[in-house]
């Protein structure tokens, strides 16, 4: 957390407010760790991050190159079933934990590198949505009056569409692609964060310490950065954690429909979308990326729920 420590430049030791913040911080962590779902969620995410970071170490084959020319010809067949030596696969056959896909790529490498892609998708999409949502919400909350009305009614209209349908319309405007799909999903998510931010601004606007800051001559930007945003951080983190799961899911759905990530990018939704017609003879190409996708979303959802319970004492059991 944000502990202030004394260093060689003679920065002040944590006293008063900072020390209190430190105390509050540790108790929040304790509360998070006392939530079983949050702990399970954190473990899942820790596992996924490890896999994503060590992707190069874990995998043998290239995720974006086919094994034709690398494996003996008789084994490099499209949609070959998994071959694991420990489970009785003949030793002369090259080992592929999750088999090969339709393009004769090693499915295991693609699923592992997919963790990198999906985590990146989740954080970048939600990060972008939060930044823009904060901006819009802050303007609406501060300005009030007709500016507030126009902005928030526009946000309401975006919410009047089912999320994925609106995203589909946006991707057709931008053209298919991973970045385009991420922009679409971010746009769809903006209203939620704008609302959270706006209510945070409204909550602190009349508070004594904000009035005091203004009396001391702080400008709106400084008040926003130093008073409002720190206060809105908790709901943003909770909302954002849950939002990452949703974003990963929705980008995967767009990719599944062929509107998002394009081959050879190892994105789970796209991998499933390209192979689901072969469900009958190659179920492993659906099962493994599907499992990975579910696990990722589950991780963020469990952590998000846990955070919400930890930060909101009213819900404490």
């Amino acid at each position, binding site marked *: 957390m944000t502990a202030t420590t004394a260093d060689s430049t003679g920065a002040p030791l944590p006293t008063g407010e900072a020390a209190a913040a430190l105390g509050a911080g540790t108790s929040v962590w304790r509360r998070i760790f006392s939530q079983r779902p949050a702990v399970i969620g954190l473990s899942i995410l820790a596992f996924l991050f490890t896999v994503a970071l060590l992707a190069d170490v874990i995998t043998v084959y290239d995720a974006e190159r086919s094994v034709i020319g690398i494996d003996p010809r008789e084994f490099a067949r499209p949609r070959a079933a998994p071959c694991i030596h420990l489970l009785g696969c003949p030793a002369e056959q090259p080992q592929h934990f999750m088999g090969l896909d339709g393009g004769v790529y090693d499915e295991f490498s693609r699923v592992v590198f997919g963790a990198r892609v999906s985590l990146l998708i989740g954080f970048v999409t939600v990060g972008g949505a939060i930044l823009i949502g904060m901006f819009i919400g802050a303007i609406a909350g501060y300005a009030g009056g007709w500016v507030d009305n126009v902005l928030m009614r526009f946000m309401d209209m975006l919410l009047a569409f089912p999320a994925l349908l609106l995203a589909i319309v946006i991707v057709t405007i931008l053209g298919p692609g991973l970045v385009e799909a991420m922009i679409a999903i971010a746009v769809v998510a903006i209203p939620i964060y704008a609302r959270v931010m706006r209510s945070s601004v409204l909550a602190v606007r009349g508070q004594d310490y904000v009035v005091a800051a203004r009396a001391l001559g702080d400008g709106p930007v400084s008040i926003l950065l130093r008073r409002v945003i720190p206060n809105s951080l908790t709901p943003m983190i909770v909302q954002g954690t849950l939002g990452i799961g949703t974003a990963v899911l929705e980008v995967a759905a767009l990719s599944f*429909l062929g509107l998002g990530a394009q081959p050879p990018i190892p994105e789970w939704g796209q991998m499933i979308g390209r192979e689901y017609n072969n469900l009958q003879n190659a*179920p492993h190409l659906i099962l493994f990326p599907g499992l990975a996708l579910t696990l990722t979303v589950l991780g963020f959802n469990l952590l998000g729920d846990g955070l919400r319970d930890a930060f909101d004492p009213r819900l404490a059991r």
Partner: protein
Amino acid sequence: MIQFIVRRLLASIPVLLGVAVIVFVLARVIPGDPCTATLGERANAQRCEQFNERYGLNEPIPAQLEIYLRDLASLDLGTSIKFGQPVTELLLQRMPTTVELTFYALVFAIIVGMTLGIVSASRRNSKVDVGSMMIANLGVSIPVFVLGLVLGFVFSVMLKDTPLALPGVAAGRLSAGFRFESIPEAWGLVDLDGPLRVILDFLSNMYTINGLLTLQFDLFIDAIRHLILPALALGTIPMAIIARMTRSSLLEVMGQDYVRTARAKGLRQRIVLFRHGLRNAMLPVVTVVGLSIGGLLSGAVLTETIFGLTGVGLTVFESIRARDYVVIQGMAVMVAIVYVVVNLITDLSYGFLDPRVRQT
């Protein structure tokens, strides 16, 4: 109450108008012109000129918007470029599939979700509770298309040739070659015309309803068999959300003083749970049911694609690929209208469930 309804209806008009304008603008900025997308290789300058003339694409954008809004007011959604038929007609043809699918998905979601929630809340922290909530957590996390494919694999590939086998992926709405009578045919009303005929045709296209109304039980059974997996796949996320909401809402209500009073005067646990607890816990549950309609409509695109059901979702997807902006516009406006109406009904049901809401 009537005043409440009228006020809510009036308040939704600007939202609908805004939605219509947003859709119009979005559809116009789609890159690539509709002419080349529709005519493909046959497109040339002269043909495109005629094409644009015919669909009013030569008019300036504000004029197009004006025409569009005027048509919209008279329920004319234009003529589809790809399908070559009026969008309203196309909608009436494709809607029944989607309505049927979402209906069964929602029924599954409400029944199973509320049961899980009630059981969990009444045996809090028991194994049943933990198990139900694990199912719920998994349910909100598994993507619709993954669940649909897994169900398809289990029930139509692994369990093939067993009594549990069900039609799976890309199976469509009925078995191949299945013949049946529409409602007007079965009732001898083929000469009927006008709005009643439209309604009957709409109902005919919901095969399960058709089967029941015209006593074609083989049609009903075949249609239901084709609907089970898609409805399960589509309904699982709302089921999980409803289960969690029922549980937490019920737990909160059961901690209230009036519940303690009811217990203290010696009422049975069952009566306390259902009469004092559940009735008052319903408000947030109804809210999430209403909200989940949007998710169901989104999910219908994926579910219909996987299972080969020709409903609105599949049509939206096909139209976007063909850049048929007329259909996209029409469907988006229609979906938004459905959404607004559902929200209205949700609000009204608050008044029904909680007398206090009616006052304000």
